């Protein structure tokens, strides 16, 4: 449904896209996951015809984003990161104008607006000025605007940024429901690992203008082969601990705060007793030990060699 091949783009001397490629199949929810500044929004802006790539090509529903711009624009709905609603109009007026520039009119225009107001749950506020909407209501209207002309593909750029955690979870339910109700293909960008994990069928991790890995969340995590074992040491005997761990088949991966050794083993639960007794036998004092299933954090770290949280904050 969406084919992206080797997109490259420079902005003011920065290589925003450095060869982005991926494919999105019909009917799936696909996520572009990455820290701020990784190139997710730029990729979306190329796909929705707002800007051009310097090199590479992309198509949406078989229409080339550069040569068949209006065909693409009729096929897609775009919900940008910064809303773009007319704050001085009502919700219904915003939807009506959106429908009109997409070529809708008459009864179809009116009933579709009503239907969407109902679907996203802002019917009661339909004839109120958007300026007085809450953040969550405005985001719902944004999504309704993107869906107005019954697009086949919906682009959601950071759909839950700026929402509180409760509204965020509600929005996830909403997006999943809409995807089914409107039989949509959805491409969303996010810098929340949890969001990508919960919401997407498949995802691509984007870092510094490139896709580093692509697949389902479960596959990516399984690809790490094993669980993370975190050993917190009483003393600072980090190197001794790493040597002991390696001896019992736990591959040391990194050290946090100079006293927590993270290593990876095939099956955390089964390996744990051996790890603890080996450490005790070597006279290393252990404060705590924990085992965790791999997370997307681990996937990011594994494929880029960088910590997701640190990178996201730095941008």
């Amino acid at each position, binding site marked *: 449904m969406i084919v992206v091949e080797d997109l490259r783009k420079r902005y003011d001397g920065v290589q925003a896209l450095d060869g982005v490629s991926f494919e999105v199949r019909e009917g799936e929810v696909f996520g572009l996951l990455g820290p701020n500044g990784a190139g997710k929004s730029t990729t979306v*802006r190329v796909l*929705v*015809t*707002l*800007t051009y790539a310097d090199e590479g090509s992309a198509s949406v529903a078989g229409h080339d984003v550069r040569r068949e711009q*209006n065909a693409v*624009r*009729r096929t*897609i709905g*775009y919900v*940008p990161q*910064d*809303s*773009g*609603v*007319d*704050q*001085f*109009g009502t919700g219904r*007026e915003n939807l009506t*104008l*959106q429908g*009109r*520039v*997409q*070529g809708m009119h008459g009864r179809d225009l009116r009933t579709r607006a009503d239907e969407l107001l109902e679907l996203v749950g802002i019917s009661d506020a339909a004839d109120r*000025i958007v300026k007085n909407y809450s953040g969550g209501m405005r985001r719902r209207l944004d999504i309704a*605007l993107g869906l107005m002309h019954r697009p086949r593909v919906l682009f959601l750029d950071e759909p839950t940024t700026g929402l509180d955690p409760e509204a965020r979870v509600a929005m996830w339910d909403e997006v999943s429901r809409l995807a089914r109700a409107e039989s949509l293909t959805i491409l969303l960008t996010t810098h929340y690992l949890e969001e990508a994990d919960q919401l997407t069928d498949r995802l691509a991790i984007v870092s510094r203008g490139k896709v580093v890995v692509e697949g389902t969340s479960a596959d990516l995590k399984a690809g790490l082969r094993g669980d993370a074992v975190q050993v917190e040491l009483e003393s600072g005997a980090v190197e001794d601990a790493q040597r002991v761990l390696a001896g019992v088949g736990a591959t040391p991966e990194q050290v946090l705060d100079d006293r927590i050794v993270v290593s990876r083993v095939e099956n955390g639960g089964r390996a744990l007793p051996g790890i603890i007794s080996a450490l005790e036998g070597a006279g290393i004092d252990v404060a705590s030990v924990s085992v965790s299933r791999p997370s997307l954090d681990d996937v990011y770290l594994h494929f880029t060699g960088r910590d997701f949280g640190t990178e996201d904050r730095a941008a």
Partner: protein
Amino acid sequence: MTVARHTWFMTVRQARNLMREPIWIVLLLVQPMVWLVLYGQLFRNVTRLGGFGTGSYITFLAPAIVVMNAFFGATWSGMAMINDLDHKVVERFLATPASRISIVLSQIVRSAFTAAIQAVVILLVSLALGVRVHTGALGWLVIIVAGILVNSAFAGISQAIALLTRREATMIAVANFIGLPLLFLSTTMIARPQMPGWMQTAARFNPVDWGVRAAREVVLPGTDWGSVAGHLGLLLALSALTAAWATRTFRAYQRSL
């Protein structure tokens, strides 16, 4: 065809939003009356200098106030575009098949439409103050058209500047910079023979003065229709030119995204 329809939809949006601001409506209607009454009283005796073509200063002034008001309104018209750019309303339209030209044209049409409403208000107040338009209903129409054309000519410039600078502070500076000088370099408040020679020459190239001359010509006796048509024609050509410029700057804005 699509351009016309989309321009209409977008103009309706802007006009409707304006109508929701009660203070704006009051200012829209009161402002022109303030000009008319204040200037009319302040310079009442100036007609004694001669060359005004009438002894009634308010009759001399009224058509020019229509044009001046249309001109001032136009210099600010880019502010609405900057607001739409800032709030990403323009970007949202750009991701749809909305006609690109309509996004710019609707701003100019909305601005000119406002000037037309104000022109009618000014003419009605003038009528109450005893101003008689020598050429009757056709004269009223000419005055309104002069207001619309002066407004659209400068609104095109204002939109272009808005798209180039994308900053309100710069817009305000530009509006102030061209506003009063162009007003004083015209025959809005004073008869041509009373102006210094160099100013008379400069006024000839001032589009504000083109509008004033066309509008005043139909109010005073001895109307020269050739001059009316000539000046309106010049304004129409200028409007087309500035609208084209605004559209070009819009394309440059799109490329910058």
